[in-house]
């Protein structure tokens, strides 16, 4: 090994002047997977604008998919965080109706004041989340298995207790005006109040993931669990916290639904399980963990909502809706993957090799 064949230390090669010009950062922006999600969103929007006509582009049309996006979005945020950390949470499919039924039974059937029902409902979600997290760190079983178990357990409990206590699997709820205004009413008659809650959640989770050290911990946990632990991250506490957040958000959405629609059903949440995973994956979060962003999750949620609701504006036979949804989603995900591959393989501006002396 001669000294000639090895580069000398940095002192002899100072950083090229202006090494980070604006062009490089635009290049960086284009190569982020979130750009792929954004393009997907735009394409899908244009598609339904063309085939859905002016009704889709009207304020009511906008409201119809934004409302769906908000409900799904609040759940997609912690689900996305969990996926970045390398986990799944299937139990939300049962926590949503369980919390719906909880507030409906406590405040509707038993007539206790709304704040009590709301508190019980949210605490239920947090408790299930804690149970999920605890089981996962103690048994070290895959999160898919553990949350599948809690999914069924909570579903069974909800059904059994509802029939036992209320005699039916559907309970009505009449809320007081304040609760209605805060959780379950319409702004301007069109936009559900939960939209505002979604925006708040978006900002908060965006801060946590993108701009706090906890976000870095979540990314590390999903990237390499063992290294994360060795680097001193309290992975157990982090896992439990994430699951409690997921349970809380699922309970929140279930509770709002019960207040908005004045009734609760025991089986009202199954579709959220897959829909939240789909929304999050469209948004650029990798299924196996280690990468994702809140912007991506939000874009993915909106894309899903547009597809899900836009179909009703096109006049296509309802039977084709599922097919179109499937195709559009696959396309969006493929687009994301290519953008992510570009981001990883992107080469820095090459420094021209010095001519040999």
């Amino acid at each position: 090994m001669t000294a000639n064949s090895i580069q000398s230390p940095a002192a002899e090669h100072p950083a090229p002047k202006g090494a980070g010009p604006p062009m490089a950062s635009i290049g960086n922006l284009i190569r982020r997977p979130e750009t792929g999600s954004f393009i997907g969103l735009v394409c899908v929007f244009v598609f339904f604008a063309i085939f859905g006509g002016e009704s889709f582009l009207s304020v009511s049309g906008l409201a119809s998919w934004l409302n769906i996006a908000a409900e799904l979005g609040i759940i997609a945020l912690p689900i996305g965080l969990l996926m970045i950390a390398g986990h799944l949470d299937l139990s939300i499919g049962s926590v949503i109706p369980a919390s719906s039924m909880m507030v409906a039974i406590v405040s509707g059937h038993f007539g206790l004041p709304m704040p009590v029902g709301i508190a019980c409902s949210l605490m239920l979600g947090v408790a299930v989340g804690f149970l999920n997290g605890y089981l996962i760190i103690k048994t070290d079983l895959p999160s898919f298995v553990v949350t599948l178990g809690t999914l069924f357990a909570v579903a069974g409990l909800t059904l059994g207790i509802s029939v036992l206590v209320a005699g039916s699997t559907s309970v009505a709820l009449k809320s007081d005006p304040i609760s209605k205004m805060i959780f379950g009413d319409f702004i301007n008659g069109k936009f559900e109040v939960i939209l505002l809650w979604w925006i708040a959640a978006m900002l908060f989770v965006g801060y946590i993931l993108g701009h706090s050290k906890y976000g870095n911990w979540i990314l590390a946990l999903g990237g390499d669990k063992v290294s994360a632990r060795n680097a001193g991250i309290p992975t157990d506490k982090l896992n439990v916290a994430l699951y409690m957040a997921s349970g809380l958000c699922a309970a929140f959405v279930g509770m709002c639904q019960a207040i908005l629609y004045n009734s609760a059903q025991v089986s009202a949440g199954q579709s959220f399980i897959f829909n939240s995973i789909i929304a999050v994956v469209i948004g650029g979060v990798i299924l196996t963990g280690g990468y994702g962003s809140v912007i991506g999750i939000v874009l993915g949620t909106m894309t899903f909502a547009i597809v899900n609701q836009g179909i009703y504006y096109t006049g296509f036979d309802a039977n084709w809706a599922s097919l179109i949804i499937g195709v559009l989603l696959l396309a969006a995900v493929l687009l994301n993957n290519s953008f992510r591959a570009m981001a990883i393989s992107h080469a820095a501006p090459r420094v021209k090799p010095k001519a040999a002396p």
Partner: protein
Amino acid sequence: MTAPLLQLNSVNKSFGPIDVLHDISIEVKAGEVLCLLGDNGAGKSTLIRLLSGVHKPTSGEMLMNGKPVSFENPREASDHGIATVHQFGGTFPLMSIGRSFFVGAEPTKRWGPFEVFDRKKANEIAVREMRQLGITRITDGDRLVGGLSGGERQALAIARAVHFGASVLILDEPTAALGVKEAAHVLRIVLQARKKGIAVIFITHQVTHALTVGDHFAVLIRGMKAADFRKGEKTREEVTDLMAGGEAMAGLEAEIESHLH
């Protein structure tokens, strides 16, 4: 003679009925490179795990700066200044360079009532530390680690260890998956770390690379230390033969020859 920074005395490690390491005694001083040579199955991985705190010795003792130590987990080992760089992984391919560098020790700044991750500072420091080790290609700490070559990732991991004040650097097969040029670069970085006064334990089965950087060599064969020599005491052929158990082979050949004549 200065006291060794890290020392193993008669360390044994068994997993149930299986004895993996027998009577291992090695030591490494500050500013020195100890090369642990051995073919696959010699017990190198177990030894690394012992040194980095994943396992505890079944018997024997570990000393740091003359004082006995015992690690319950890798975190404790790293708290004592022992940093381990594995062959793969540990650098989070999907994170940016800045973030990956500071995992678990993120720099923060205040933004109103919020504590915000200081991305700029993290990127600056990460890039600077890598440049110090000769990686000049990277100028933007936001680039994903996955876009770095194998050698650059090794450099990142070593830079991180050095930056966070490691006194002992354990490198597990750092050049095994690298091409010639990249391997050369990593070896140069090892020498730089050595110059900084860090004790380096360099585990490999590539004799050429070991002979380039090592001050002190130990050969592991089937869990036992088969040889212990300083730089210059053996040639490359002798070492290779040693690792493959070749001395025994050579002895057998000589015996057969002498019988035939």
